[in-house]
Each structure stands twice: as C-alpha cells, then as structure tokens.
C-alpha cells in the first residue's frame, strides 16, 4: 500500500514486482489532499473516536459487570437479550435511528455517530466485558461491597483494574468500528465540512485506475491511526488471555 502510494498518479496501477522499482514521489498524497479535505476529515474522525471509544469502554464494562451481579432469571435473560441484539442487522436500524435523531434535532451533528457508544457500540463488546467480569471471584466482589464500596466504586477500583486487558481489547475494537464507520456518517451528516475519513476514502475510490496511487495515499493516511491504536493495545489482544481475566469461574 505504501509503495503503491509512492507512485506518481497518471498511469494504471502497477502489478507484481514493479512495485519495488518505484521512484518515490509524494504527488499522490498532494493530489489526495487537493481533491478531498483529508486533513479536516482526519480531525473529524479523531474527534469522534476520542469521545466514542472511552465512552464505549465505560458503558460496555459497566454493563458487563452489572449482568454478572444479576440474580436468576434476570442474568440469563440479559445474556440472551444481548445475544439476540447481536443478530439484528445494522441496516434494519438506519431508518428508525434517522427518524429518532431527526426528532431530537441531532441530524447533521456527531451525536448519531457517538450515541451507539452509550450501549457499548456493539453487543459483542458488552458480552466480552461480561465474560471477562464473570471470571472474577464473587468473594472478591462481595468483600469489596462489605468494605463499604458502592457498585460504581467496586467497578472502578476492583473490576476495571482486574479486567484491564479486556478493556483495552474492547477499546481497540471500538476504535476500529468507529474509525471505519462509512454508512452512518453518510446518512446522518449533510455538511461536507463534517465528513469523516471513510467518506473521503470512498470519494477517492471513485477515481479512475490512473489515480490508483491517490487512493492508496488516502488509505495510508487512514491506516496510520488504527495501526498506532493496535500497537498500543496489542499486548491486551495477543498476550496470554488467562492473565486478562479470562479464567474459568471457580
């Protein structure tokens, strides 16, 4: 991708080892920024993930922990409900959400893009946090409650530190979900100045084959932040999962 982006635009995309004989040029980057306001879009996308990712971690982790504290039959019902939510296609929610956000006067703002973080962005992330919190000893939680800690402080001082690696993995997954979100910004935003990076990339993708390096230049710009995010969170994703709180309940 990087080598392709270093080709000057104006010729069909190279194939095979031709990639390695490139005369490096930044013309494709210049043209990408000239055609599409990639800088502004990068900033917009970063703003959204800066709010949505921490919000996702807090909401998913709190919800996951809360489910572990439910008694029968609510515990089973909550897990089943979350699994059922996981099966609902995203496209089925576009028009209802559009109508809701229109009623709230939130169209053409970032609210519709950030709001899903309030329910953990995806039911899968809530389930991840639930499974992680479920591995903690119930005695430990009960002891913390006996020591006078309220539910929120138990979550903050006991659950979150012990499930830190899962929280980081959830943060990375939430980052990817919000960073790559293409259809919702297109549906809910109308002001071009508020557009996010996937929209800019999609615009570049409509160019002809002689502009393939321009598309790749845009892809490089869009890829750097997720790569950095994964570099930070990789230990949580790749390290021994047992130490991440994913231990069988005793």
């Amino acid at each position, binding site marked *: 991708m990087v080598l392709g982006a270093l080709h000057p635009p104006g010729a069909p995309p190279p194939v095979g080892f031709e990639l390695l004989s490139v005369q490096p040029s930044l013309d494709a980057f210049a043209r990408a920024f000239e*055609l599409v306001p990639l800088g502004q879009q990068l900033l917009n996308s970063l703003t959204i993930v800066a709010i949505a990712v921490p919000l996702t971690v807090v909401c998913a982790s709190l919800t996951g922990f809360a489910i572990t504290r439910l008694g029968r039959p609510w515990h089973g019902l909550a897990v089943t409900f979350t699994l059922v939510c996981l099966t609902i296609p995203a496209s*089925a929610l576009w028009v209802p959400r*559009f109508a809701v956000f229109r009623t709230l006067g939130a169209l053409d703002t970032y609210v519709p893009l950030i709001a899903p973080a309030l329910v953990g962005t995806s039911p899968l992330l809530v389930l991840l946090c639930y499974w992680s919190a479920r591995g903690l000893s119930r005695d430990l939680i009960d002891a913390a409650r006996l020591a006078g800690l309220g539910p929120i402080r138990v979550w903050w001082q006991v659950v979150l530190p012990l499930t830190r690696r899962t929280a980081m993995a959830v943060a990375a997954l939430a980052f990817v979900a919000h960073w790559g979100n293409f259809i919702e910004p297109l549906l809910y935003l109308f002001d071009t100045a508020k557009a996010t990076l996937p929209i800019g990339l999609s615009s570049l993708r409509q160019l*002809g084959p002689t502009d393939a390096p321009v598309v790749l230049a845009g892809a490089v710009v869009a890829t750097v932040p997720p790569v950095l995010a994964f570099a930070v969170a990789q230990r949580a994703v790749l390290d021994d999962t047992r130490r991440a709180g994913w231990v069988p309940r005793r």
Partner: protein
Amino acid sequence: MGAKALICAGVMVALGLSGCGGEDEPAAARGTATAEAVPEITFQVTGDPEETRVYKDLAESYKRDTGRTVKIDEVPERDVHLAKLTTGFSAGQAPEVFLLNYRYLGGFADKGVVEPAGPRLDKSNAFAREDFYPIPMAAFEYQGELQCVPQNASSLAVYYNKDLFERAGVAEPGDSWTYEQFTTAADKLTTGETYGVGIDLSTIRAAPWVWAAGGELVDDPVNPTKFLFDTPEGRRGLEHVVALRANGWSPTADEADSKAIDERFLEGSLGMFLSSRRDVPMLRTITGFEWDVAPFPTDVEPASVLHSDGFCIAKGEHADAAWLWVEYALGKAGQQVLAASGRSVPSLKAVAESPAFLDPSEPPANSKVFVDALSQMHQLPVTANWSEVEGRTDDILGELYYGRIELDEALDRLAKETDGQF
C-alpha cells in the same frame, strides 16, 4: 454487489414501511421566487471528486451571479446516494434537488416524492422542451408526466486504440460500422499480447445488442412484465455479445478480475472497449498512443442505449428555490461548464452541437458519435422495481458472458427471476 444491494434493499423496505415524509410537506406554490426570499437549498449528487468539483464550481458561480446559496452534498457511491435519498425521503428530510439516473426514477416517482418538472419547464423563460433532445426527455417521464430535466445524454460507444488498429492493418470505423466489421477488427487486434475488445456486460450494456438485432428489450416499454431476451432477435443479440468472449477476443473472467478492462485499455493491451462518455476524462490522461471513439456497431439496425442523469426536485416548500438552481445549472453557462469537463454529453441541443462539446482539439476527435447516437438510441424502462430487476439481470448476464452458464440456462433463470417483477 451483495452489500450494496443490501443497503438499497434495506432502505427501500424501510421507505415502503414508513411511507414518505415528503408527501406530507405542503405543496410548493407555483411561480418564481424573488431573489431576497430564496432560501438556501441542498443539491445531492454522486460521483468522483473531479466530477463533484464541477458542481461546487457551478454553485460558486451561482452564488456570485445571483447571491443565492446551494449546498453541495456529495455522496461518493451511487448505491449509497440512492440509500441516502431513500432514507431522507422516508424520514422527511430529503435534499431539495438531486441528480438521478432515469433508471432509478421509477422508485421515487412511484412514491410521489418528486416534484414534476414538466409544468415548471413549460412556464420557464430560460428554455423550452424543444431545446432538449427528445429521447432523454421521454426517459424522465413517469406515467405521462415529465418528472426531472435531463442534465446529460450519453450512450454506449466503442473507444478504440488508433495505434493498435494501424498496426493490425484494420481500417478505422468512421461514423458507422457493421457487427461484421467490428468482430473482424476484434479478431485482428487479438494477439498473444493484446485482446481485441472488452466489455463489462450488464443489463444496460446488453440491451443495445438486442435492439441492434431488431428486437425489443421488454414486452411493453411503459408497463413491462418480462424481458424479451428469448425472442429470435433477443437471442441473436445475446449471441453476438457472448461471441466476443467465446471467440477469445476479450479477457477471461479471471483476467478481467485481475486487471479491469479500462486499465487494459489505458496500458495499451486492449484494442477496443465499450463504455459511455463518463470515461473520457480518464482516457484523456493517455499519452502513449492515440485513441478515438466509434459508434455502437450496427447489426440489423443502428442502436444504442441512453445513459442520462437528470435534475430532480423534491416536493416541498423550497421547490421554487430548487427550480431556480436547476434553471441556472441547465442554462447555457452551466451546461458549458459541464461540457468542458468532458465526461457528459449535454442534454441541450445548442450546447451539444457547439464547439464547447465537439471541440476536435481535445480527444476524442469524433465526439459527434455521441450526438449522432441521440437520434437512434433507446431507453431502458422506468418502473418502480427496475433497480432490483437490473441487479438480478446483471448477475446472470455476467455468468453468461464468461461461459459459466449456457444461453438457455441464462434465459430460464432470467425468466424465473424477473418475469412479473418490474
């Protein structure tokens, strides 16, 4: 295709369920809005950044000339453009003006969300119906009323590599050529290193083969119920196009997947490829060889297929302001800006037949091909479910072209999947 189809299907279903918010809006008062009372409007358009930049420039000159503001809402992909329009209409917040291909008009006109353009055009001082080519005007009619005003009127044509023609000893096509001349050229241009011809077969690109063979595409152009690919003329048309791959004159499916036909043409390894006018800006970047454009080959009769987008106005309180923008964008100045971009054939006769479009100093030298085609082209049907029917047909035709299924099987599947679905 699957994901995009899902996007469209999802919002189409939602539109059907939730009704059309636009219908509840108060009907626009007829007449011309005064400059000071004209509100800001939004114009939703799809295309690549170069294409949408033309509209941004046009909106700037509109602001300069009239003091009125048009916000350009650019949507990169056509399917998402349709999805956004459908969602917007469904929830009662659609753009005041949008550019729409006539093939997708039926779904919107059927829901009553488009403000018919006919009465406004008849009252307009800027232009009359006669100023436009009749075939694209007819394409934007729905149930007898003009819904949108055509902005461009392109057709399927044959782009060819002049250098490869000369090297293969093939005479250039000129203003007309037969199917035999076309296939002879394809055969001679096919060598170990080059293919003679390339086409991405789809419904819109299969239709002119049927018309050229003297057939009709559907049983009733206004209220179609089935395709007529299974008539002798329909079969002949399909056999002609499928022969291009069967005879080895065009790339295989794997080759087309690994390198698209337009890329092959750009690098000089494809003698001819069939496309509409929209590829011209890309082709103008060619420096390694000379190229030009020829008409669609004639079989029993000359034919081509209409590619046309039109300015459509959403029903609503800002329809008058929207019409003012349409008048400006369709006016001579606006059309000349669009013609100069090279990618569209103007729908206004005066502009299409002027040097702004026919300028022979800019390739293709034979742009007249597109103007000539305007008298012999056919349109695809405009129905409520055309988009869905076309999607199903495209898949089957693709399999047929690359030899994955035989003609009879393709015809059976086409009948099974599209009869009565229009």
